[in-house]
C-alpha cells in the first residue's frame, strides 16, 4: 500500500537554529500516528511544513506517492491536508457553521446575499458524519473548549481532508471530553482519514495511536508500533542524547536554613497541592513539560497571580503575599521566561531597568533621582556581570538576549533579593552566554542566595540543580536528589498524569493497554 504521506530528509533552519535535520515521517490512510519528542524536538516545525505554514529548505514530501510542493496553507488544503493548532483559531462571535465555511460561504440572489440556510445545512451534514450533536447556529464563543475543538475538526473535514494533523488536542480537555474526541478520531480513522497526533501524554498515545514516531533535536529517531512498545522505551528514545555538559558539584546543604517553605499551594486546576522547601544556597531545579504549572507556582508565590489556598513561609515566618510588591519586600525576585513582556522596559535604558525594583534607594528628599548614584550602580553591575553594552544609557532593546537576561538578573541583585525564581533562564540565549548564566547562578548560590530554576531542558536541570522537583499537570509528581537523577527518571515523573497511577503505569509498561 502506498503511504498517504511520505516525508524524506527534510531540512529547515531558522535564524540561528537548525530546526530540522533530515527529518522523516510516514502516514498511512486510516492510521493514527503519534509524533513525540521533547519541547523543541521539531515536531511542530515538521507538521507546519506539511501544512504549508513554513517552507522546507531541502527534502521531499510525497502525497500518495506523488512529489508535491506545499507553498501555502491554501496549497495544503487543496492536497487534503488540515492542521488543528493547539491554540484554536475561531471567531467567537460567529456561529459554528459560519466559522466552518468562513471565506467559502454559499451565496444566493446572484451572489449578492449569503445563503445562511445552505450554510447551516452543510455544517449539519458534517456534524452528522462525525456523529456529533451540535447546533450549527450555536455561537462558538459560548461552546465548551471541547466543542470548539470539534468545530475546528469539522472545519478541517469540510475541506475533504485526507490528512488531519492535531497538535496537543487534549491540552484543555477533561476526561469525558477526551473520550468524546477519541470517539470522533476513531470514526474518522474508520473512514480512511490519516491522523497525525502530537502529544506528550503517554497514556493517551497508548489508547489512541497505532504507531509512534520519535524526534529529537530536529532529527528522526525511529518509528515503533504502539501496542508492542513500552513507555520506558519511548521515553529513552526521546531523551537518549549524550550528556556532554559537566555536572556541578552538589554542596552539602543540610545545615543551611530553610528560607522558603510552601505548603499545599492551590489554584483551580493550574496548581494542585504543591509543597516544597528551599534552603539557603540551594539551587532547586523545577522540571516538567510545558504547561506543567511551574511558571504558575512561581508567579503565585511572587504574588503576580492570586492563590486559592496554601501557606507560604519565608525565613520561618508565615507571609501574606498579595502583590509582587509584597514579595519584593520579603526579598523574593522573579525572572520571567518572557523577558521582553514581563522582565524589561525595553524602550528604556540599561540603568533605568537595573534600578527599577529599588528606585526608592536612589532618591533624595524621597522625590528626586540621584542620577550619579544610579549610573554608578548600573556600571558596577555592567562590569560585574560582564554585560556587553556601549553604555548604561543604551536602550535595552538594542542588546542581545543574553545581555538582556543579565540585566534582569542585575535588577534583582540590585534589589538584594535572597530568594530568586529563574524561569527558563537560558531560553533564546546562545551557548556561550548560557555558560555565563550557569556560572552566575552557581556564584549566586555560593553567596547564599536560594534559587528556584525552572527549566524545560533536562540537561540543564541535571547540570545545575542541587535537588530536582518535577511537576505534571499542576501537581508535584516527585522530588529527586541531583545525585543519580537521570533524564529518564525525570521524564517518567513529568508524564505521570493524575489518571495514570503507579499501577497502571506498570501494566502499561508491561505492554497491555489501559
Amino acid at each position, binding site marked *: 500500500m502506498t503511504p498517504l504521506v511520505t516525508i524524506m530528509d527534510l531540512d529547515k533552519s531558522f535564524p540561528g537554529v537548525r530546526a530540522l535535520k533530515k527529518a522523516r515521517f510516514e502516514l498511512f490512510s486510516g492510521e493514527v500516528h503519534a509524533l513525540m519528542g521533547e519541547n523543541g524536538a521539531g515536531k511542530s516545525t515538521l507538521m507546519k511544513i506539511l501544512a504549508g505554514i513554513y517552507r522546507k529548505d531541502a527534502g521531499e514530501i510525497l502525497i500518495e506517492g506523488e512529489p508535491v510542493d506545499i507553498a501555502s496553507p491554501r496549497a495544503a488544503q487543496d492536497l487534503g491536508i488540515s492542521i488543528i493548532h493547539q491554540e484554536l483559531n475561531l471567531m467567537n462571535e460567529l456561529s459554528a457553521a459560519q466559522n466552518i465555511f468562513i471565506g467559502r460561504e454559499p451565496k444566493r440572489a446572484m451572489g449578492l446575499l449569503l445563503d445562511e440556510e445552505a450554510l447551516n445545512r452543510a455544517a449539519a451534514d458534517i456534524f452528522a458524519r462525525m456523529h456529533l450533536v451540535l447546533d450549527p447556529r450555536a455561537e462558538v464563543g459560548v461552546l465548551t473548549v471541547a466543542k470548539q475543538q470539534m468545530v475546528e475538526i469539522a472545519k478541517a473535514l469540510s475541506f475533504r481532508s485526507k490528512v488531519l494533523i492535531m497538535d496537543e488536542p487534549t491540552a484543555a480537555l477533561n476526561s469525558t471530553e477526551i473520550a468524546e474526541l477519541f470517539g470522533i478520531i476513531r470514526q474518522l480513522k474508520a473512514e480512511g482519514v490519516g491522523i497525525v497526533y502530537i502529544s506528550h501524554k503517554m497514556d493517551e498515545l497508548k489508547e489512541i495511536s497505532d504507531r509512534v514516531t520519535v524526534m529529537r533535536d530536529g532529527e528522526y529517531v525511529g518509528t515503533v508500533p504502539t501496542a508492542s512498545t513500552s513507555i520506558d522505551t519511548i521515553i529513552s528514545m526521546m531523551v537518549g542524547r549524550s550528556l556532554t555538559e559537566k555536572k556541578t558539584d552538589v554542596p552539602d546543604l543540610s545545615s543551611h536554613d530553610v528560607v522558603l517553605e510552601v505548603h499545599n499551594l492551590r489554584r483551580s486546576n493550574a496548581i494542585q497541592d504543591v509543597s516544597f522547601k528551599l534552603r539557603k544556597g540551594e539551587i532547586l531545579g523545577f522540571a516538567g513539560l510545558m504547561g506543567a504549572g511551574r511558571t504558575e507556582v512561581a508567579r503565585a508565590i511572587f504574588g503576580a497571580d492570586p492563590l486559592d489556598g496554601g501557606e507560604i513561609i519565608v525565613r520561618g515566618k508565615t507571609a501574606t503575599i498579595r502583590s509582587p510588591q509584597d514579595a*519584593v519586600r520579603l526579598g523574593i525576585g522573579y525572572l520571567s521566561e518572557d523577558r521582553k513582556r514581563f522582565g524589561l522596559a525595553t524602550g528604556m535604558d540599561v540603568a533605568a531597568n537595573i534600578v527599577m525594583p529599588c*528606585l526608592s534607594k536612589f532618591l533624595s528628599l524621597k522625590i528626586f533621582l540621584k542620577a550619579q548614584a544610579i549610573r554608578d550602580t548600573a556600571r558596577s553591575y555592567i562590569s560585574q556581570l560582564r554585560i556587553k553594552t556601549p553604555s548604561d544609557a543604551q536602550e535595552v532593546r538594542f542588546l542581545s538576549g543574553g545581555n538582556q537576561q543579565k540585566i534582569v538578573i542585575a535588577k534583582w541583585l540590585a534589589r538584594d533579593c535572597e530568594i530568586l525564581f529563574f524561569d527558563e533562564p537560558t531560553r533564546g540565549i546562545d551557548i556561550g552566554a548560557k555558560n555565563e548564566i550557569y556560572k552566575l547562578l552557581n556564584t549566586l548560590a555560593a553567596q547564599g542566595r536560594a534559587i528556584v530554576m525552572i527549566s524545560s531542558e533536562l540537561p540543564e536541570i541535571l547540570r545545575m540543580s542541587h535537588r530536582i522537583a518535577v511537576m505534571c499537570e499542576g501537581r508535584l509528581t516527585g522530588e529527586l536528589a541531583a545525585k543519580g537523577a537521570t533524564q529518564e527518571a525525570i521524564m517518567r515523573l513529568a508524564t505521570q498524569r493524575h489518571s495514570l497511577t503507579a499501577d497502571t503505569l506498570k501494566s502499561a509498561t508491561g505492554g497491555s493497554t489501559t
Partner: protein
Amino acid sequence: MTTIVEKDIQTIVRPAVLSQGTWQKILAFASLIALLAVFSIASENFLQSDNLIGILQATAVNGVLAVAATFVIITGGIDLSVGTLMTFCAVIAGVVLTYWGLPMPVGILAAIAAGALCGSVSGTIIAKMRVPPFIATLGMMMLLKGLALVISGTRPIYFNDTPNFSMISQESLIGAVLPFLPIPNGVLILFIVAIVSSLILTSTALGRYTFALGSNEEAVRLSGVNTDSWKIIVYTVSGGICGIAGLIIASRLNSAQPALGQGYELDAIAAVVIGGTSLSGGRGTILGTIIGALIISVLTNGLRILSVAQEWQTVVTGIIIILAVYADILRRKS
C-alpha cells in the same frame, strides 16, 4: 579584571546616536523656524512684537493643557477630559471667589485642587476599575461638562469682585522688571509649568515611573512597583495642571464660561503628537510638546494675518498633524 571589562566597554562605545525623540524634536523645531520665516517674509506685520506676544498669549492655555496631556500620553494612556476639566476648574474658581467671596489665593488653590481631585478620580477608574483610558476620560469629559453647567447655572460667572484676578494672565511681571520684554503672566505660567513638569519627568521617581508605565507596565508591576498608585498620581498631577489652565483662561476672559472647553482636548493632543510624544507611550518630552503647541498657534496666527479664511486654517492644521506623525513613522521604519 574590572579594568579589562571597562576597556571592552570603551572600545564598543559609539558616537552618541540621536534618539528618535530627539530627531522628532529637531524636526518640529525646524518646522517652527521655517513657519516663522515663511510668515515673516509673507507679511511684514507678522514679526511685530505685539503679534509675537499675541502668539505666545494664544499658546498659554493650549500649552498648559498639552503639558497635562503629555504626562498621561507618556504612560500610554489618553485624556479626553482636559478641556472640560479646565472649564470645570474655572467654574470652581468662580464659585469660590464670586459666589462665596473668599480671597483670591483660596480660589486659586480650589481650582487646582479640583483639577487634581478629578484627575485622581479618572486615574482610579482607569487603574483600579480597569476601564480603558479612552472610555474613562470620555465619560469624565461629558460628566465635567455637565457639572460645570449645573454648578454655574449655565451662566458665565464674572470675576468683577476680584479685580486682581485678571493679573493671573493679563499683566506682565517680567515687563515690570524688563520693560522691553512685556511677556504676559499667562505665558510666564506656561513656562514655569513646562520647566517644573520637565524636571518631574526627567529627574524624579514619578517621572521615571511615568515613562516605565508606558514602556512596559507589566514588567514594572513584576518589579514590585505599585503601578496602580503611580498611575493614579500621574492622572492627579495632570488634573492639577488642567486646573492651572482653567485659571489662565478664566483670568483672560475675566469670567468662567461654562459652555467653553470641549474641543480643547484635541488641540492639546495635537500639540503633544506634533511634539514627538508617542501615543503608544514610553516616549515624549515637554519641550517637544511646547514646540508643538507653538507650531499650532503660529500657524493659526500666520494664516489669519495672510487673511486665509478660518475654515482653511483648520484644514491646514489637520494636514500638519497627519504629516508630523507620518514623518515620525517613516523615520521609525528606516
